[in-house]
Every structure is written in structure tokens, then in C-alpha cells.
């Protein structure tokens, strides 16, 4: 069997890294999956249900756990990949945190993304006002089966604030994080199902429902669940004497400013290049794009290529993407890796 002895190191044990590891191991390659956190799984770990079909996130988590159960895979956690170097003759060396060095025949970079730190949008008062939360924090509430205000009371009006940290020059992010619109719609529907007496508003700049069944979900949210949509970027939030949030937004379709009180404001935080990934890229000489994610060799037919021989990219270290696309991208990275290893 081809390539049995060949060794691939994967930097990052999120969705992309786990899928790539599973696919390579299945083909008989020896894989070392390096994850900086305590468990593989990445951001998916904190998710409760997934768009567009509200399937339990646990189903995908368990698929990925099985995927890395193969005996060809060694998982190292609590460890970061700090530098990758290709040597003449084909060996790739990888520096791990704790000054260990590992040798491999190829490396897949799958360092993923960091969530935008909502405190940087000071005007929304995240970390200051009691009832300003982020989309992942709402997901944690869904996991617990209850959505309440900080004081434990039941909300009667919730606002989903789109594009927090995305499409915003003020925080140096001009890119769209792609998944937040559909996440907001998914979460809005869940809130309406959970609390039929609670009004839910989405404040958006554009509804970017790019994936299969997303537009249908958007339509369903209006038709069946009475989710409200107001087109406008929320400019600031404050609290009134009843500790209720007060937001300012333009209702751009009415062409007039609008003021609204909210019990909870959910910030749809976007994706940024992971800090650990950026350090790795700088140390290893990988190119970063204008969006600060890793820039692949070719946008159309080589978006897994790093430009360094024996090093390939998988998943959201190259751009924001959903789980479906991340898994496809990881499989494509595996195809490129195998083509490279076979051709040597």
C-alpha cells in the first residue's frame, strides 16, 4: 500500500484538522494532529445546534471524534505549532511549543479562526452593560436550555446585531465573515420557538444568505416565526434607568433614525485570522492576504497551496467558511497532500 510510512503533521485540531487527519489516516498515512486547546473540536465544541437545519451540533462533533479514532492518528493537545520549515530533500520540520521539534513528510495548516473580541466595538458596551452577549454565549445558553437576562428574568425583546467586527474598517476588518447572517436567523428562530412571547429583531446591513437552504431559512423566519428585520447598522447602545438596553440605528428603508429598547442584545461576532496562526505564519514566512488570513497560492484552483513545498492549508485559516465548506476544503487539502507525497 502506497505511503504507509509517510508522516503528516496537522497544525490545529478543529473541524478542518480533524477531517483532514481522518481522511489521511484512512488512506494509511501516519498523522500527528496537534491541538493547542485541551480537546480537539475547535469552536464547534461550544455550539448547540447548526444551521440551516437546526441539527444538534453533537452529531457533527461525534462524527469528527470518530474520524480521529483511527489508530494511524496520534493526537497531541495543549501544544501549539510555532514554526514550519521545508528542507531540501523533502523533510518538513515543525517546532512545537515546549521547544520540541518533529519531522514530517508534509504539513497541513488548519489553525482556524479567532472570534472577534466584541469589546473592541466600544460603542456596544460588551463587558460593560449586563445584557450584551455574543452569539456563542447565546449558544451556551441554548446548551443550558434557558435564555434569561443577567438578573435571571425572562426577556421580552431581543436584538441580533449583525456584522460585529466584520465589514468594518474601524476595527480593521473589511471582510465579510459569511456565516453570521445565517447564524443570526437560526438563533432568532430558536429564540422565537423557545419564547413565543419574546419579539426578536435582526439588525443587518445586507442579508448574505449564500448557502443552500439559507434563503429558505430566512423566509421561514419571517413567514412562520415572525422574526423582524431592520436594515441598518446599530451605531451605539446604552442603558436606561430600568437597566434596559437602548439602541440607535437607522431604519434605512424608512430613511429615519430609530430608537428601540431591548432586553438582550446578541452580537454576531465575526471571524478573524487566529492569533496563533498569525504567529505561525510570520515565523514560517507564509503570506497573509489583505484580510490577514493565510493567502493561498491561487484563489481559483490552488486554494490549499501555501507556496511552500510540502505545506498545505485547510479550513478557516484561509478565509471565513461554514462547516460544510471547511470539511470540503480539508478534503481538498488532503488530495493536494497525497498528490504531493505520491509525486516525490
Amino acid at each position, binding site marked *: 500500500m502506497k505511503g504507509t510510512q509517510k508522516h503528516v503533521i496537522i497544525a490545529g485540531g478543529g473541524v478542518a484538522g480533524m477531517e483532514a487527519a481522518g481522511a489521511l489516516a484512512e488512506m494509511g498515512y501516519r498523522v500527528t494532529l496537534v491541538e493547542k486547546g485541551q480537546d480537539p473540536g475547535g469552536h464547534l465544541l461550544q455550539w448547540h445546534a447548526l444551521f440551516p437545519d437546526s441539527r444538534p451540533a453533537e452529531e457533527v462533533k461525534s462524527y469528527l471524534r470518530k474520524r480521529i479514532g483511527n489508530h494511524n492518528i496520534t493526537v497531541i493537545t495543549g501544544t501549539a505549532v510555532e514554526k514550519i520549515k521545508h528542507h531540501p530533500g523533502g523533510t518538513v520540520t515543525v517546532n512545537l511549543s515546549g521547544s520540541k521539534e518533529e519531522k514530517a513528510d508534509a504539513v497541513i495548516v488548519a489553525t482556524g479562526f479567532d472570534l472577534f473580541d466584541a469589546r473592541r466595538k466600544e460603542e456596544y458596551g460588551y463587558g460593560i452593560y449586563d445584557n450584551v452577549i455574543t452569539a456563542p454565549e447565546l449558544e451556551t445558553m441554548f446548551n443550558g436550555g434557558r435564555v434569561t437576562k443577567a438578573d435571571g428574568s425572562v426577556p421580552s425583546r431581543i436584538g441580533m446585531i449583525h456584522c460585529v467586527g466584520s465589514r468594518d474598517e474601524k476595527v480593521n476588518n473589511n471582510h465579510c465573515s459569511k456565516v453570521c447572517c445565517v447564524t443570526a436567523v437560526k438563533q432568532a428562530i430558536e429564540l422565537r420557538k423557545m419564547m413565543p412571547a419574546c419579539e426578536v429583531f435582526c439588525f443587518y446591513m445586507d442579508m448574505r444568505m449564500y448557502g443552500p437552504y439559507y434563503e429558505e431559512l430566512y423566509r421561514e423566519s419571517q413567514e412562520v416565526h415572525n422574526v423582524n428585520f431592520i436594515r441598518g447598522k446599530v451605531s451605539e447602545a446604552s442603558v436606561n434607568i430600568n437597566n434596559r438596553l437602548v439602541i440607535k440605528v437607522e431604519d434605512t*428603508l*424608512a430613511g*429615519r433614525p430609530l430608537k428601540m429598547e431591548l432586553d438582550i442584545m446578541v452580537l454576531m461576532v465575526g471571524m478573524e485570522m487566529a492569533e496563533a496562526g498569525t504567529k505561525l505564519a510570520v515565523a514560517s514566512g507564509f503570506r497573509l492576504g489583505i484580510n490577514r488570513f493565510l493567502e493561498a497560492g491561487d484563489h481559483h484552483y490552488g486554494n490549499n497551496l501555501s507556496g511552500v513545498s510540502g505545506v498545505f492549508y485547510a479550513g478557516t485559516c484561509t478565509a471565513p467558511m461554514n462547516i460544510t465548506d471547511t470539511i470540503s476544503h480539508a478534503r481538498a487539502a488532503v488530495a493536494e497532500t497525497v498528490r504531493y507525497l505520491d509525486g516525490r
Partner: protein
Amino acid sequence: MNVKQANKFGFSINRSRLIDYDTSDRKVREYVTLREPSFKLCFACGGCTATCTAGQHTSFNLRRLNTYIRRGEIEPLREEVTRCMLCGKCLLVCPRGVNTRNVVAMAAEAIRKLERNEL
């Protein structure tokens, strides 16, 4: 009082353009949504306004009228609902299948009831 004092100062206090969602009246929205549920589907593309005969020569704007109903802005609605000629061309255009003509008819009905304190 106001006018007299305005003369005294040469100016008066400007009126707010704000839509205050916490004080506006959404009875008309409830009335329309109940009788014409397709109203909820409007995503404000403006196709109706582009094709509207009335909108070519008056400020009538069906897309904006929908927004006013949703936000509970009754004041601008009163005038707006009278401008539609109910030709129904907008119905043919709407990509979301909203029964636009009935939305205007129901909004006009709701306004009439509101004025008679029947809503």
C-alpha cells in the same frame, strides 16, 4: 403659545424625526398581518415601487409604506394609503409573493377604523 414664543426668539424647537419603537402604535401592523399574512414576507426589494404607476408621478412608495406599517408610524401612513390606485401591477412583480394590493387595502381599512376608534 408656541408660535408667539417662536417670534420672540426667531426660532422654535425642531421636531424629532426619530422612529421611537417603544412609543409607536403597531395596531395597524397587527390588523394587516392577521388579514394578509403574506405581508410578513416583504424583504424590501422595491420591485413594487419601481413598477408602480402612482409612484411615477407622486411620492407614493409601497416599499416604504410596508416599513411604516411594520414600525407603527401611523402619521405618514394616513396620506400614503390614499395614493395607491389598486391596479395590482406590483402583485405581478413581487418576488416573495406578497399580496401587495391587499396590504394597501387592509392598511387603509385599519386607518379608517383607527380614526373611528374601532381598532
